[in-house]
């Protein structure tokens, strides 16, 4: 069954047709990759899923219900979590607090007037947060500020925040962007591990083809705002259309 369905989505920025009649369906429990060269419209498409952008035409269905017009927090409460292309975390707070906030949002909903509770005494929330931080391999002192972490660790933290919400659908926008090869491989391993332990449907946006071939069950190739091919990884590799789309780019850069 498709958990996420994208039908005839188009989006225009002034004179630029960023998305042109995009159709896509993501199977429940699968890892679906969306790849494409720079400026293909991948982030734009993802922003249409989470309430940041409103498509000009078309619909986005999550579990059969339309996501259009919903606010980001409402979409998250439905069970859709995302990580950003550049990690977005709460830099003034501690690592543990970052994840606890996500866990609070899951448990207490979009708003809870919990004025006189004590964060310190929320042992259940803290245990969940600690466990997940351990799962993603963050070895830093958890009571340290989140501001001084490396980019790779910030990515892990963001991932931990999403996982603590036990989402139905996890959207990852270039999880390895700007990482060195070693870090990229570590992230791939991490995502594989998470897939083994947490049964979460994932949509991974990637620029780098090598990353997705080892992860994805299905790949959609986006170029100039349209899906040119949608197929299994082994069939994508030799596809001449894909080669053409990436022509002029150093392959797997």
């Amino acid at each position: 069954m498709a958990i996420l369905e994208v039908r005839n989505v188009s989006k225009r920025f002034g004179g630029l047709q960023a998305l042109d009649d995009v159709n896509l369906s993501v199977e429940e429990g699968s890892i679906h990759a969306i790849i494409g060269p720079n400026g293909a419209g991948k982030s734009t498409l993802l922003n249409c899923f989470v309430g940041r952008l409103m498509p000009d035409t078309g619909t986005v269905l999550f579990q059969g219900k339309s996501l259009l017009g919903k606010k980001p927090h409402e979409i998250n409460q439905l069970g859709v979590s995302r990580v950003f292309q550049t990690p977005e975390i709460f830099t003034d707070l501690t690592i543990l607090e970052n994840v606890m906030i996500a866990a609070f949002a899951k448990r207490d909903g979009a708003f809870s007037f919990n004025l006189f509770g004590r964060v310190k005494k929320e042992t259940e929330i803290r245990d969940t947060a600690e466990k997940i931080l351990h799962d993603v391999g963050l070895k830093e002192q958890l009571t340290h500020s989140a501001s001084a972490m490396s980019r790779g660790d910030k990515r892990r933290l963001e991932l931990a925040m999403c996982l603590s919400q036990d989402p139905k659908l996890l959207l990852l926008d270039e999880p390895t962007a700007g990482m060195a090869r070693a870090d990229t491989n570590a992230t791939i391993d991490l995502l594989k591990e998470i897939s083994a332990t947490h049964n979460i449907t994932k949509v991974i946006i990637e620029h780098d083809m090598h990353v997705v071939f080892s992860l994805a069950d299905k790949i959609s190739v986006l170029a100039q705002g349209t899906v040119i091919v949608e197929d299994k990884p082994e069939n994508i590799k030799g596809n001449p259309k894909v080669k053409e789309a990436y022509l002029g780019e150093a392959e797997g850069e």
Partner: protein
Amino acid sequence: MFANLKNNDKLIMLGFTIMVFAGPIILAPFGAGYPDLLQRFAIFGIFAIGFNILFGLTGYLSFGHAAFLGVGSYSAMWMFKLLTMNVIPALILSVIISALFSVVIGYMSLRRSGIYFSILTLAFAQMSYNLAYSVFTPVTNGETGLQLRLQDARILDAVNTSGSLPSPSLFGLKLSATTVVEAFGMRFQFNWGFYFCAIVLIIMFYISLRIFRSPFGLMLRAVKTNQNRLNYTGINTRPYTLGAFVISGVYAGLAGALLVCTDPLAGAERMQWTASGEVVLMTILGGAGTLIGPVIGAGAIKYAENIFSKINDTVLEGYFAFMPETISDFFVFIVSPFVGEGWHLMLGLIFMLVVTFLPGGLVEGATRITGWIVSLGKKSKSVDANGSTEAAE
């Protein structure tokens, strides 16, 4: 050890309570023994603590909180006029009315953030100020200000036959009463008005402490660092910021009510933008986002106001009298713009210095000094240790 001390809420409350209750004794040598000034410390401390819940935690900088101070004062005055001189109904009404005002103003201002939010709050506050002088004169008594009168109804109080104006009381205990105790060759004044304000201050400080430690407070701090991430984490930030706004508005209203409990006169100048700016300065000077900072900032500014605004040219000439006349005249000429009427110039100067060199406010200064002392202590200890090992060899 200091880290533990900092995070132990019971110790913080105990220390704070002792400091506040002992305030008249501790501050007596600094010329702050007068009930008047100490009451102002407590009242503006409450105002700043509340402001800090909005500004310190969420980062939303309101330039209009004096409006709620004024609203609180007027509400309390009306209770004194219509119902009773007992301060409790006055406080209750001021809390309700300032909450209503801040829901409306907060709801509209929080549609924007950053500088636009600040401008909106400023605009609403100036509107309230102007309305108090024009349309609402039947309620505010315009420029004269709202005062007690002998013919006021006061339906709950006994008929006043004394011919003099009544004064605010707590179940019969007059807040203006002062008990004087002579001990250790000094005169200590215990003013009931101050101790009433002090108790309210301690309660409000405790509430603020609990908010800081609560999941609600954690969300407010998250709003400050990354509102975008918070939205994508499933949190609807608007009711959180509105909650913080209303809480801080209620603190301001309560402070306004206490102002008329200690001096039953409410004027619209209390709502002017300079008063809104003052609470911003107090919070930043003491340390925005810290628990105790706003109280310290409020105390520091009210103390400085008391000292510097009283100095005039004659006093200055006294200070510089030991110099030859031409030189002393020169110094008086340089210093006089900064004192008396112009003490705000001095305030601006102090504020600039603190923000430049101690961006975390006076609390950061205190933390640095204790850190410095602790590290000195450690150094001398390790030197001792080395010394003894050498001796052993």
